[in-house]
């Protein structure tokens, strides 16, 4: 006799509708992602056919964009398991609608991150050699072991709390497509919600929530040791482990904010993911960002205070030379600006800014846009003004003018972001993630460009790393793969936990177990 499906509340129906509804927007997005992935696969085929010579990687630059992607994806993967586990253990009630999103980010980004070292190897037929001839003394082997362990643990951590929901879907989609029903029946493990089953589930969640925290921390620590165990300027650091972990948590929390906004908008989850969730996640991002900023300061102040001769070239290139723009963007645009965006709009005097004429958004933006357009178009219209305008003139603007314009734009937009806190959180989180990727690039490439023994007798162009179209294509393919896995996951499984959000309504009082802990409603006033 078929099981009777549980009755659903209206908001749960909205959630389940997101599993089956696939409009033209969804199909277009999947098509675009598949096209980018296909292009990435073509680029990889070119790399396989002609070797790593088609990339910008050379003798001195054995790591580049691929390892940047690897560190970035592993970093983003952190937050899912770690944040979810910490919030479960501490009994934060508001976590319930967002934990599965975070855990799914971990799963998708780990899959993509784990691929990157193999792409970087150039000879995938030698993958087994890593295990056959790997040395236990090498951080590279530690990395393989820790990532494998973390992938297994985070998959379990994602899967186990989904079992009651999968059982609900099994009953709900009994008359649906056969593949769906078979998949749900297999993964539901015969879940009926009996007392014994709930007991086992809570026990598993308790064990996994505690276990996954040291595993997640150790994974990114080991990733940092791949760099930190070498004697190279910029990498030879004792705080690389915590520095990497703090950066990973910062970028991962920001990625969760982006995912929350995307799913809230696409699947109409306003009843589940409220403004209060963005506010609380914003607090988390601010706290993690400040810790990360502290570690960054500590990481760079020590060598730059001493300016040892062997490290001078590297430090000069990062602070004021070839990589200065990237570095300062990662610090100002990737850390400072997001933190300001998340904090300043809450200050009481911000609405008064809109009364100042030069800070009104529309005139200010129009003035800026017109100025840029005039500078760009004037040389084309009046050839005599070529020296005054064009792209080159904009690029050569003094730093103080750029800073003043940026500050003006920021002050202009503050009242707008105050009215739209979710937009502010999304812009801040996107900036954090772009900055996080670029920061990984700045960690990896300048060090390789400035080894202790200078690069000598290298062919022209080999002493500078310039990623080629192959690397950019594979990177775009990996990003598209990450988004596609995440998107397809949300089409097969509910992106918000149904049974946990049900319990949120049923049991407002604090609970004792990590699987069903409570600690305050999401809509509670912010501290």
């Amino acid at each position, binding site marked *: 006799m078929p099981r009777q499906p549980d009755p659903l509340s209206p908001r749960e129906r909205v959630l389940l509708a997101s599993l089956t509804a696939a409009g033209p927007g969804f199909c277009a997005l999947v098509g675009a992602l598949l096209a980018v992935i296909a292009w990435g696969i073509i680029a990889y085929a070119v790399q396989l056919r002609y070797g790593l010579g088609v990339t910008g990687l050379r003798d001195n630059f054995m790591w580049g964009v691929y390892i940047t992607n690897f560190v970035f994806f592993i970093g983003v993967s952190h937050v899912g398991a770690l944040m979810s586990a910490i919030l479960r253990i501490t009994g934060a009630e508001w976590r319930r609608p967002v934990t599965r999103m975070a855990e799914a980010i971990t799963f998708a980004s780990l899959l993509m991150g784990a691929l990157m070292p193999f792409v970087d190897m150039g000879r995938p037929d030698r993958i087994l050699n890593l295990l056959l001839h790997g*040395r*236990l*003394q090498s951080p590279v082997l*530690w990395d393989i*072991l820790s990532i494998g*362990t973390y992938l*297994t*643990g985070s998959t*379990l951590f994602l899967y*186990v709390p989904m*079992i009651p929901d999968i059982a609900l879907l099994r009953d709900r989609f009994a008359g649906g497509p056969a593949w769906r029903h078979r998949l749900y029946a297999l993964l*539901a*493990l*015969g*879940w*009926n919600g*009996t007392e*014994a*089953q709930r007991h*086992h*589930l809570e*026990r*598993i969640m308790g*064990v*996994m929530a505690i*276990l996954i925290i040291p*595993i997640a921390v150790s994974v990114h620590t080991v990733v940092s040791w791949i760099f930190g165990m070498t004697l190279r300027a910029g990498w030879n650091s004792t705080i690389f482990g915590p520095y990497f972990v703090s950066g990973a948590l910062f970028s991962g929390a920001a990625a969760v904010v982006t995912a929350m906004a995307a799913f809230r908008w696409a699947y109409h989850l306003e009843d589940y993911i409220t403004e209060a969730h963005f506010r609380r996640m914003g607090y988390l991002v601010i706290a993690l960002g400040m810790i990360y900023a502290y570690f960054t300061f500590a990481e760079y102040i020590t060598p730059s205070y001493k300016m040892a001769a062997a490290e001078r070239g590297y430090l000069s290139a990062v602070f004021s030379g070839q990589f200065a723009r990237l570095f300062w963007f990662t610090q100002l645009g990737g850390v400072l600006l997001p933190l300001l965006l998340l904090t300043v709009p809450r200050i009481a005097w911000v609405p008064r800014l809109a009364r100042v004429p030069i800070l009104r958004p529309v005139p200010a933006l129009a003035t800026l846009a017109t100025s840029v357009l005039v500078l760009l178009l004037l040389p084309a219209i009046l050839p005599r003004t070529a020296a005054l305008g064009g792209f080159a003139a904009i690029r050569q603007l003094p730093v103080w003018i750029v800073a003043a314009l940026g500050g003006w734009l920021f002050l202009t937009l503050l009242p707008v972001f105050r009215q739209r806190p979710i937009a502010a959180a999304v812009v801040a989180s996107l900036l954090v993630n772009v900055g996080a990727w670029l920061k990984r690039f700045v960690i990896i490439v300048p060090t390789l460009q400035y080894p202790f023994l200078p690069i000598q007798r290298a062919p022209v162009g080999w002493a500078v790393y310039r990623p080629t179209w192959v690397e950019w294509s594979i990177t775009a393919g990996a990003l598209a793969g990450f988004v596609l896995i995440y998107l397809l996951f949300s089409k097969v499984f509910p992106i918000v936990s149904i049974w946990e959000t049900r319990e949120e309504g049923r049991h407002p009082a604090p609970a004792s177990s990590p699987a069903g802990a409570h600690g305050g409603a999401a809509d509670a006033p912010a501290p």
Partner: protein
Amino acid sequence: MRLLRKPSCYTLLLVALLVLPAEGAEPARVLLRTRAAADGTVQVTATVVDARGAPVAEVPLVFKRRTAFGWLTLLETSTGKDGTAQTTLGAGAAPGEIAVEAGEDGTIRAAVLVERRKAPPPVIRPGRDVLRGLSPQPGFISPYPVPLQVTFFGAILGGIWATYGYVAWLLLRIRREGNHPGRPL
């Protein structure tokens, strides 16, 4: 002119030609010889000789090694006064074909197959001594897994995977409970 008519003069000239060093003689062949040393290295010696078998000095030589990607140049040199030149293959080098090309255009060629050599045991010994810093390369840089490190990793990874096993067992119990409620696993 009278001197030229004497047969002894031609005999002397012939003897002088034979005795004179072979400088300026054209190289005709390259002879290759290998010698394995106790430390695992292999010395490859090339001797360039002319058509009469006499060594030829100052002949340009190129030592090459066959690799999966083609011939790799190991050394570009010239023969010494004794007509020889040498190169040494490191102890860790893989076995393979070594070729020598002699002459300005490299047309005189010889090759020899270097067999797999038994690698010498590493100087550094693993174990507690390494950890105690008695070895010149203490700690994790040891070429062997350090026992303490293996134990440490084994305990951590073993503990984690054992916990995963426990979780899998609990999942099986959930499944069993779903199929047969109330029946113990």
